[in-house]
Structure formats: C-alpha cells, structure tokens
C-alpha cells in the first residue's frame, strides 16, 4: 500500500511583528498517510495543524523538509490534481452562484464540458443543494456553504481528500452526515486526511491518527494500537440505597433524590456492589464499563508535553 502523503522533517518558522521575531511553528514533522485510509490529525490550538495543511497545499513554503503527495513532490502544482480540499471556514466568491462556482472550479481542473455538467449535477444532488444552486453564495447559510465547499472539493473526483475541521460548528445531525460521507469516501477507495477537535468523531471513523503538540508529532499510529481496551472504571447508577452504603467499594460521584452514581475503580469490587444492591432490595439502573478513550490519551499526551 503506497503512501498518499509522506512528510519528512517538515520545518517552518515565521517572522512576525515589526521588529521581526522568529517563531518556530513546525519543528520537524514526520508522518505518513497510507492510501485508502481515514487519517485524523489532532492537536491543541496553535500546535501547527493548519500550518501543516497549508504546507501540503503549497500555500506556505516550508523552510526545510519534504512532502510527497501520491508520489509527486508538493512543489509542483500538478501534485494537487488528485486533491480535494475543504478549508475550515469556507469563503467563496459571494457574487457567484453555487453552479457558477462549481463550473469555475471545474475549469481550473481543465474538465471537459460534458464531464463538467455531469459532475456538477451529481455533486449538487449529493450535497443537497439542487434547489439553491442558482442563488448567489452570499445568500447561503453556514451549513449550505459547508456543503457547497464539500461539492467543490469533490469536483475532480479526487483520490485524496483533505478536510480542515469539517465537523466544527455543526449540529449532531450534520456531524453524522459528514461522518457518513467520509466513510463512504473510504469505501470508494479515497484517502481522507482531516483535522478535528471533536475526538469522539475521530475515534469513530479514523483508522490512524497523529497528535501534534507544539510543532512536533508526539504520537502516531493506528487507533486500535493507541487506545487500549483497558477498563478505567465502571459506572453504576443505583436507586434505593444511600451513598454511605457503598463506602469502601467505590467513589460516589453524585446523589440526586434516591439515585446514586457510583464509580468503581477496582474491578473485583463490581460483583460486591451488585450483591449489595440485590441484598438490600435496591434497583440497578445502569452499569457501564468505561474504557480508555482517545480523549484520555489526548489529554494525557498534551499535559505531559
């Protein structure tokens, strides 16, 4: 399986301010994205996620390091031919309609006329903008713009799709839609590289992730490998028994009315709690083991760095 993206020792400094002070943003980034996988790129704000993407896309010239996109050096504009990109807050020419904008984008890829019309029609249907297709973009809501952005990212049927915070600011239904679309990309054989803050979503769909903190990759690998199946604690919601009854068995997190939310850290104590509840004629409302999540890894990694 070839690499869709290969980044080696990427470095970038910015000189900012009137009296130029050099700030190191990327301090030697190295990672790879394999073809056909969904790759999540995470990190706290200011870590360098967007800068990495901009280097990939040729918007920023790196000071050192190499980037290869589907085997081509990122320096050549041709490397962007199989690419589709959706930026974080899409800004498009607000005097164009969605249809005109897609036509313009198609022209930039040199698509033929028949193919162009065909794809525009299909994409507008895909993202659900058929009815608004001839309205100028400045009349679009944020969600509609996001969808238009997605359509323009797909106009060239890209092999590699790059999304910068695609799930930000969307409601749960919107997020589900986007997640489904990303998974569908994978089914079609596309590679997806995206950044996100919403770790639950990453956990749900990514194959591999990389965590960037302070301009360095601090963790990289398959999600399966990073997140162990270790149980951190078991949460139980019990009714009918006072919190004091559970002393020594677990930590009572909260008590409302006659309900107690209990956190049991010792696995061996779980059965004892169940016996207690049955013995005292209480009611067990829920019982769920909590495994290590990506969020836990993330927080731990960031605080450690």
């Amino acid at each position, binding site marked *: 399986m070839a690499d869709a993206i290969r980044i080696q020792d990427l470095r970038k400094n910015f000189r900012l301010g009137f009296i130029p002070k050099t700030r190191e943003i990327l301090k030697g980034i190295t990672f790879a994205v394999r073809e056909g996988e969904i790759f999540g790129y995470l990190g706290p704000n200011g870590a360098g996620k967007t800068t990495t993407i901009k280097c990939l896309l040729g918007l920023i010239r790196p000071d050192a390091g*190499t980037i*290869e996109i589907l*085997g*081509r*050096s*990122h*320096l*050549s504009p041709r490397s962007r031919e199989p690419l589709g990109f959706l930026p974080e807050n899409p800004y498009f020419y607000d005097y164009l309609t969605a249809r005109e904008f897609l036509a313009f984008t198609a022209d930039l890829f040199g698509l033929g006329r028949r193919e162009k019309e065909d794809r525009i029609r299909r994409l507008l249907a895909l993202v659900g903008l058929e009815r608004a297709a001839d309205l100028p973009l400045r009349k679009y809501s944020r969600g509609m713009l996001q969808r238009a952005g997605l359509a323009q990212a797909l106009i060239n049927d890209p092999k590699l799709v790059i999304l910068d915070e695609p799930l930000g600011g969307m409601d749960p239904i919107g997020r589900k839609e986007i997640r489904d679309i990303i998974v569908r990309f994978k089914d079609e054989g596309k590679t997806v590289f995206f950044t996100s803050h919403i770790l639950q979503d990453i956990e749900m769909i990514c194959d591999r992730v990389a965590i960037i903190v302070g301009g360095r990759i601090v963790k990289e690998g398959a999600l399966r490998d990073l997140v162990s199946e270790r149980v951190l604690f078991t949460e139980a919601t019990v009714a009918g028994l006072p919190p004091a009854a559970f002393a020594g068995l677990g930590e009572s997190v909260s008590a409302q009315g006659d309900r107690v939310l209990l956190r049991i850290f010792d696995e061996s104590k779980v059965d004892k709690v169940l016996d207690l509840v049955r013995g005292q004629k209480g009611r067990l409302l829920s019982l769920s083991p909590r495994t290590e999540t990506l969020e836990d890894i993330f927080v731990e990694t960031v605080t450690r760095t």
Partner: protein
Amino acid sequence: MAMAKTSFANRRRGTLLLIGLLVASAAGFSALKAATDRIARKKIPGSSIIYIPSGKFLKHATFGYRALAADAIYLWAIQYYSTPAIDDRFDHLDHIFAIINELDLRFQDPYEIGAMIAVQGALELRAERPEQAAKAMRDAFTILDRGAANNPDQWVYPFNAGHIALINLRDYALAEKYFEQCMKIPGAPEFVERLRANAIFKKGDLQTSWETWLDIYNRAPDERTKKIASNHLYRVKATIDRGALEKALAEYRQRSGRLPSDLAALVRTGLLREVPKDLDGKDYVYDPATGSVKTGISPWRR
C-alpha cells in the same frame, strides 16, 4: 526523493525564467525609450524651462493635460474679461495670456483674442488711467509677438499687430515693420504689401513710398491692382509736389510779403525750375487767396 529533486529543479527553472523575462523586458523598454526619445515629435519647439510659477512651469505640472488646462484658463479668461465690473482686470492681462500660450503654444484663438481684449482695455482706460492704457496697448503687441514667434507660419499675428499699430496707435513705422514681417510669410494676403506701402507713406518717407508703390505697380498681376497702385502713386507724387510748391510759396511770401497770383510766378522768380503737374499731367489747383494747393481730382476718383 528523486521526484522532489526534479520538482525543486522545476521551481528553480521557473524562477530563472521569470528573472530572465524581467531582465529582457527591462532591456527592451530601456532600448525603446532611447529610440522613442530620438524620434522628434511635432512637440512644440522652444520650450525652455525656468522654474518659476509661470506658464512654463504650469505646462509640466499638469501631467499631460496641459492642453486641457489651457482651455480651462482661456474659458475662464473670457468670462473674466467680459465682466466690466472688475476695474483692474487688465493689470495682469499679459501674465494670464502668457500662461495660456505657454500651456498650448499652438492654440491660436488666445493670441488674437488676447490682443483684442488688450486693445479694448487700452481704449477703455485711456481717459481715466492713461498709464494703464499704454501698458495694455503694449500687452497687445507682446501677445501678438509671442503668437508670431510660436507660430511662424501664421500671418495673422503680424497682420493684427500692424493693424493695431496703424489704426489705434498711429505708429506708422511700427505698422510698416509688422506688415513687412507679415508679407514674408507664405500665404499672406496680397494686399499686405499695399498696407505696408501706405504705412510708409503715412510715416512721411515719401521717396521710399514712391519706390514701393512703383514696384507694386510694375508687378501688379491684374488691372485692379494696377489701378490702386496708380492711385497711390498719384497721391504720393501729389504730396511731394505739394510739399515743394508750398515750400516755394512760403519763400515767395517771405520775399515779397504776399502770395503770387499763379504758380508760374514761382518759376519766373526762380524759386522753382518748373510747375509740377500731377501724375496724369494735369495742373494742380491753386487758390491765390489762401495759398492752398490741391489736386484737381481726388486720387481715388481718377
């Protein structure tokens, strides 16, 4: 990694190509600038530059719109000089029209109109402010001289100047000079040489006047011109003759204390060799009572 290297090379090549283009185009336009400079445009000759706020400076401060600036100032000037309420409007007449002329050396109207306004001003001011009137008159000539200098192919300017000298100033020597200047310009009307001849006559140089008119008579291309020249010759001779006669009469009177009864008396007393006859061979009319000598017929009715 080899891919990366070739792409780097591509980018390098791109930069070199652009720099090459930069240098080539710079060389191109530099060379063309020199070539274009050498092409003599019918750009107005004699534009010396002195950095004083005059029309010369203004010409270059208008960034290529100097003709328009000339128009604007000229339009304003016309309105300005049509306003009689402004008493001292003739004070800076020449300065204003100098600016207009400098801005557009070949804009013909302002020269003529400027001179016309100046003469008008001179007439207006003559009664109350004779000094200003004199200056205004001088301005008229300054403007017309400038017009002639900047447009040596235009006969109108010396013509107008001669006309003003003749009619308004009665400076016949000056009129003669201008008419002579006018004559030399190709395209000048044929009557200008006659105006000159007449000016010489009015100046009082009868001998030259005679010779000039004779020349005109001899060269006359048609009957009409011949007649006119002939009439003038008649008048010149009449004036010469009259002068001689009146001089002789005065002498006679001095000697004998009275006027002679006829002109033959002057010959008898030896004051004249002979009694002159007019150009047609006719006698002059002498009135012994007053001592006046007149032509028998008006020169223009021959």
